[in-house]
C-alpha cells in the first residue's frame, strides 16, 4: 500500500522504484566480502574466559606465535573523551593488560598459516587469571558496596547527565507512571566482523580491508592508535554484510590486525566467528527506565520526570563513547509530544560486560517504549482510547522547539497517527476484541508514535561535545570524456542501496540516465574523507552533497553547450542525456559536451577550465522523520505466546527517492524491532558469562516470526533537506517495542496483568499472567 503517489509523472528518476545496481553480483555469488580474501597468516584471539580478574600468566608452547599487550610497543589504548555530563574516561588497551573486564575481552592473539591451525594454537595458550567478583547488572553496579570496574570511577557511574527546564506545573489533575526494562540486545549482522591487512614492502603502506561502516573514520582511529601517518594506511570496506551500528564502532581487534601485518611484513586475516560476535561484538539497550507524567484534567501532558540507567559495559568505544545511549535518552525523550517542563537524570553504568555500541535506533527504542507505555497507562486512567490521549498531546505546529532545544522541522505526527487509526478502524476492533474474549481469545491493539532525528550535521554533534565532531559529507562528481559519471562519496553503504539512490539523485541533477552513473564508496584511496553510514544520515547528507556537486557539474555542461550551440547559457536545458536550446530543435548529446570539456577546449572560447569534476559539501542542521506504528496482537494466555495479527507503519520520511528501497528499509527495520520486542536477548549469568552465543540461543526472527507489514507514506517536502529526503534507516526498529508492548498489555489488561519488560517472551508473559492470577485470588 502506498497512499501518496506524488512525483511519479515528472519524468524524474527520483521517486521511481528502479531496480538496484548492487544486486547482480550479489545474487551471482560474485560479491566480494572481507573473508573472501586469502592471507598468509590467520589470527585467532585468545579471550578472557572470566568477567573480572587479574592476569597472572599467559604462555604458549614453543612454536606458537603469541602476541600479547607487552608486544604492542608504542601502541596507544582506545581512549574517548567527552567534556561534559560528568563523563569519566577510561583507557581500553587493544589487548588486555594486567586485568580483564569482560568475558570475551581479547587478551592475546596467535598467528598460524590456516584458520584451523590458528584455532588449534589458541587452544594451546595457557591463560591464568585470578578471578575477582564481577559487577554484571545495573542493580549490582549501583550497590554502594559494589566492586569498581575501573578503580578511578566511584560508584561505577561513567556518565551522569541531568536536565531540568520549565516550571513545575500547578494544575496537575493526574500523575501517571511507567517503568520499563529493556534487556540486552546485539545488532547481529549476518556477516560477523572480519579484517584483512596486507603490508606492502615497497610503499610501506598497509591496506586494511574490513567490515566497516566508516572507512575514513576507522583509518583515522587506527593510524592514531598505531602512531602512523594516515597516508601509510588504506582502509577498504568491500561488500559488507550488514552493520546496524555494530560495524560503525571500532573493534580493538582491527588495529591489532593492522599492527600484525606491519610488524610481520605480510598479510594477516581475522575472521570473527559467531560466538565471538555475540560475546564481544558490542551490545546495546541494556537499560532500566522510569517516568512520571503530570496531566491536566483534559489529558494534556504538562510535565515529565524521568530516570534512565543504562548498563554500558566495561569500556568506552570509538567513536561515540559509552555515553551515547544515556545522552540520547536524555535529549530525545520528549519525542513527538508537546510539553515544556522536563526533568531527567540519565546515567551510564560500567559493568564487567561487553562494551555497548549504537545499534539501529540507538536509545530511541527504549525511550519511545517508555513514553508510549506512559501514554497507554495514562489513557487507562483517563478512560480514553490511547490514540485520543495522543491526539491531545502530539505536536501540531512547526517548526517546534523542544524543551531540550531541538528544532523539529515540518512533520506529520498527527496525520500519520490518524492514518493508522483509520486503517485499524478502532471501534470495529474493540467490538472484535470483546467477541474474541468471549471465545477465550485475547486480542490487543497498541500504537507508538515517534520521530527520528536524521541527517544531522556538525551542529548536532558539536552539541554532544564529542572528541570527533562529525556531521558533514563531501562528494566528488566527475564525468569522463565518454559521458559516464562517477560519484565518489565518503559515506559507506552496506545494504542500503545507496549506489542506486544516489545515482537517481545525480541523474536528475545532471540530466542523464542513472545507468551511466557509478557511485564509488568504501575505499579511503578513491573517495573523499567522510564520516560513513550510520544515524540514518547517508541519503540525506551524502545524497545532498551529491545533488550539489551534480548541480555544479550540470552548470558547467550548460556553459559548454552554450558555446557549442551558440546560445545563451540560460536557454540550455539538459535532460534525457542531451543539451537542448529551449524552444528549438538544436541539441547536442551530453557525450559531445564531455568530449569537448577534455579534448576540444579551443572550441569553448578559452574561458572554460578543462575537465568535468566538481566537489560539494553538505552539512545540514538535521531533520526529523516520523511514523506511527500500530500492532494488533493475540496473546495465548496458556503459553504466553504472542502472535502479531496486523502490523501497520504510517510514516513520513520526506521525499521517497526510491520507494522500493524505502519499503525494504522499513520492513527490515520493523522485523528487527519485533525481535527486540519479543525474541532476542543477550543473557549473562551471575558470574558474567554470556549464555547466548549461538543464533539458536539468541533467537533472531525467521520468516515465520515476520508478519506482512502494511505501509503507508506521507511525503513532507521539508526545507531542512535539499533533496527533501528525511532519513529512515532506523525508524522501523524504533517503533515496534512500544506498539507491541502496548498491544500485549491491551490484550491482557482484563486479566489484571501487565508486562513492562522486553523481550516479552512467552515465559515473561506467562509469569505476568500467573502473578495477576495470584494477586486476584
Amino acid at each position, binding site marked *: 500500500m502506498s497512499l501518496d503517489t506524488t512525483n511519479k509523472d515528472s519524468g524524474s528518476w527520483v521517486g521511481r522504484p528502479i531496480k538496484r545496481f548492487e544486486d547482480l553480483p*550479489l*545474487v*551471482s555469488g560474485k560479491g566480494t566480502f572481507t573473508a573472501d580474501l586469502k592471507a598468509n597468516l590467520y589470527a585467532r584471539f585468545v579471550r578472557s574466559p572470566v568477567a573480572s580478574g587479574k592476569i597472572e600468566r599467559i604462555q604458549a608452547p614453543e612454536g606458537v606465535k603469541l602476541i600479547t599487550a607487552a608486544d604492542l610497543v608504542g601502541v596507544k589504548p582506545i581512549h574517548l573523551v567527552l567534556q561534559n555530563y560528568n563523563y569519566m574516561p577510561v583507557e581500553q588497551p587493544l589487548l588486555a593488560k594486567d586485568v580483564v573486564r569482560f568475558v570475551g575481552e581479547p587478551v592475546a592473539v596467535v598467528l598460524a598459516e590456516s584458520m584451523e*591451525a590458528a584455532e588449534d594454537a589458541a587452544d594451546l595458550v595457557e591463560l591464568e587469571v585470578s578471578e575477582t567478583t564481577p559487577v554484571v547488572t545495573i542493580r549490582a553496579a549501583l550497590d554502594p558496596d559494589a566492586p569498581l570496574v575501573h578503580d578511578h570511577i566511584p560508584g561505577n557511574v561513567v556518565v551522569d547527565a541531568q536536565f531540568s527546564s520549565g516550571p513545575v506545573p500547578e494544575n496537575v489533575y493526574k500523575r501517571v507512571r511507567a517503568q520499563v526494562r529493556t534487556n540486552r540486545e546485539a545488532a547481529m549482522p*549476518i556477516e560477523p566482523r572480519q579484517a584483512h591487512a596486507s603490508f606492502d614492502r615497497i610503499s610501506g603502506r598497509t591496506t586494511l580491508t574490513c567490515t566497516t561502516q566508516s572507512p575514513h573514520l576507522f583509518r583515522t582511529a587506527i593510524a592514531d592508535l598505531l602512531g602512523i601517518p594516515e597516508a601509510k594506511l588504506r582502509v577498504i570496506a568491500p561488500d559488507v*554484510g*550488514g552493520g546496524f551500528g555494530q560495524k560503525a564502532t571500532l573493534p580493538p581487534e582491527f588495529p591489532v590486525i593492522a599492527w600484525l601485518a606491519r610488524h610481520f611484513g605480510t598479510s594477516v586475516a581475522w575472521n570473527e566467528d*559467531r560466538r565471538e560476535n555475540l560475546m564481544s561484538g558490542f551490545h546495546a539497550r541494556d537499560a532500566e527506565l522510569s517516568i512520571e507524567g503530570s496531566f491536566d484534567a483534559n489529558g494534556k501532558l504538562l510535565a515529565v520526570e524521568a530516570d534512565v540507567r543504562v548498563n554500558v559495559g566495561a569500556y568506552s568505544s570509538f567513536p561515540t563513547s559509552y555515553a551515547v545511549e544515556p545522552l540520547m535518552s536524555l535529549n530525545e525523550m520528549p519525542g513527538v509530544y508537546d510539553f515544556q517542563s522536563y526533568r531527567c537524570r540519565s546515567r551510564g553504568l560500567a559493568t564487567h560486560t561487553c562494551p555497548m555500541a549504537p545499534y539501529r535506533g540507538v536509545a530511541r527504542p527504549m525511550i519511545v517504549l517508555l513514553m508510549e507505555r506512559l501514554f497507554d497507562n495514562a489513557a487507562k486512567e483517563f478512560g480514553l482510547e490511547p490514540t485520543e490521549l495522543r491526539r491531545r498531546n502530539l505536536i501540531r505546529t512547526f517548526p517546534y522547539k523542544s524543551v531540550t532545544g531541538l528544532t523539529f522541522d515540518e512533520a506529520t505526527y498527527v496525520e500519520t497517527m490518524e492514518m493508522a487509526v483509520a486503517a485499524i478502524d478502532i471501534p470495529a476492533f474493540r467490538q472484535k476484541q470483546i467477541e474474541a474474549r468471549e471465545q477465550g481469545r485475547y486480542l490487543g491493539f497498541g500504537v507508538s508514535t515517534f520521530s527520528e532525528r536524521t541527517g544531522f550535521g556538525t551542529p548536532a554533534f558539536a552539541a554532544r561535545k564529542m572528541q570527533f565532531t562529525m556531521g558533514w559529507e563531501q562528494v566528488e562528481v566527475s564525468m569522463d570524456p565518454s559521458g559516464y559519471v562517477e560519484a565518489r562519496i565518503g559515506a559507506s553503504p552496506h545494504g542500503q542501496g545507496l549506489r542506486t539512490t544516489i545515482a537517481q539523485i545525480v541523474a536528475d541533477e545532471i540530466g542523464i540516465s542513472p545507468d551511466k552513473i557509478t557511485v564509488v564508496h568504501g575505499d579511503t584511496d578513491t573517495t573523499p574523507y567522510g564520516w560513513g553510514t550510520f544515524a540514518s544520515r547517508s541519503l540525506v547528507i551524502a545524497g545532498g552533497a551529491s545533488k550539489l556537486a551534480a548541480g555544479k557539474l550540470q552548470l558547467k555542461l550548460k556553459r559548454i553547450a552554450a558555446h557549442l550551440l551558440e546560445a545563451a547559457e540560460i536557454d540550455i536545458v539538459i535532460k534525457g542525456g542531451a543539451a537542448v536550446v529551449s524552444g528549438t530543435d538544436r541539441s547536442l548529446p551530453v557525450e559531445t559536451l564531455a568530449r569537448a570539456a577534455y579534448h576540444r577546449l579551443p572550441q569553448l572560447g578559452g574561458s572554460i577550465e578543462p575537465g568535468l569534476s566538481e566537489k560539494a559539501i553538505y552539512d545540514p542542521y538535521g531533520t526529523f522523520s516520523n511514523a506511527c506504528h500500530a500492532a494488533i496482537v493475540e496473546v495465548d494466555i496458556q503459553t504466553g505466546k504472542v502472535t502479531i495479527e496486523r502490523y501497520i507503519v504510517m510514516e513520513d520520511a520526506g521525499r521517497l527517492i526510491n520507494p522500493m528501497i524505502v519499503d*525494504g528499509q522499513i520492513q527490515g527495520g520493523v522485523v528487527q524491532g519485533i525481535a527486540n520486542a519479543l525474541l532476542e536477548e543477550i543473557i549473562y549469568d551471575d558470574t558474567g558469562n554470556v549464555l547466548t552465543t549461538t543464533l539458536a540461543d539468541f533467537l533472531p526472527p525467521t520468516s515465520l516470526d515476520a508478519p506482512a507489514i502494511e505501509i503507508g507514506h506521507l511525503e513532507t517536502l521539508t526545507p531542512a533537506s535539499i533533496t527533501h529526503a528525511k532519513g529512515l534507516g532506523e525508524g522501523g526498529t524504533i517503533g515496534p517495542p512500544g506498539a507491541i508492548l502496548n498491544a500485549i498489555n491491551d490484550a491482557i489488561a482484563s486479566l489484571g496483568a501487565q508486562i513492562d519488560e522486553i523481550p516479552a517472551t512467552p515465559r515473561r508473559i506467562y509469569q505476568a499472567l500467573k502473578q495477576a492470577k495470584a494477586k486476584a485470588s
Partner: protein
Amino acid sequence: MTDLVDIRLKVNGEDHFLRVEDRRTLADALRENCCLTGTHVGCEHGVCGSCTVIVDGQPVRSCLMFACQAHDKTIRTVEGLATDGKLHPLQQSFIDHHGLQCGFCTPGFLMLVVGVLESEPQASDDDVIEAISSNLCRCTGYQNIIKAVRSALPEMRAQGRTA
C-alpha cells in the same frame, strides 16, 4: 594438524581434486580450496543457513558437512545457478522483488529454495515458503524474499530447470 585426505568434489559440473584435512568443512573447502567464495559462512553452527549448497540434489548446510563426506558427490553452489549467462529465474526474482539488501545471506536462500524444489518437486508453494524459515536474513524482514520466491516458483516449475 590432522590427517589429510584426497577427495574429488564435482562442483557445478567441474571436478575439483583436493587434498584436505579430514576436519575441513565443505564450506571451507568450497571457499578456500575451490575458490568459490559465493558460499558464505555466517555462524558455523548450522543455524543461519548462509552456507547452504546442494549436495546430490539436497540442500545442505555446508558448515556442518566435512569436505571428505562430500567426496564424489555432485555439488551445486550459487556460482552454478546461472546458465549460458542468463540468471536463474530465482536470481532474477530476488532482484525484481528487492529480496536482498546486503546480499550476504542471499546465496544461501537461493540454494535452499532451489534445493527444496529439486529434492521435493511435489512440494506445494506453501511448503516451499515455509522452508524459507530454515535460513536467517537480518536485513529484509523476509517479506520480499517470500515475494521473490513465490513469484519465481511457476517459472521454476515450468522450466523444470531444477530437475
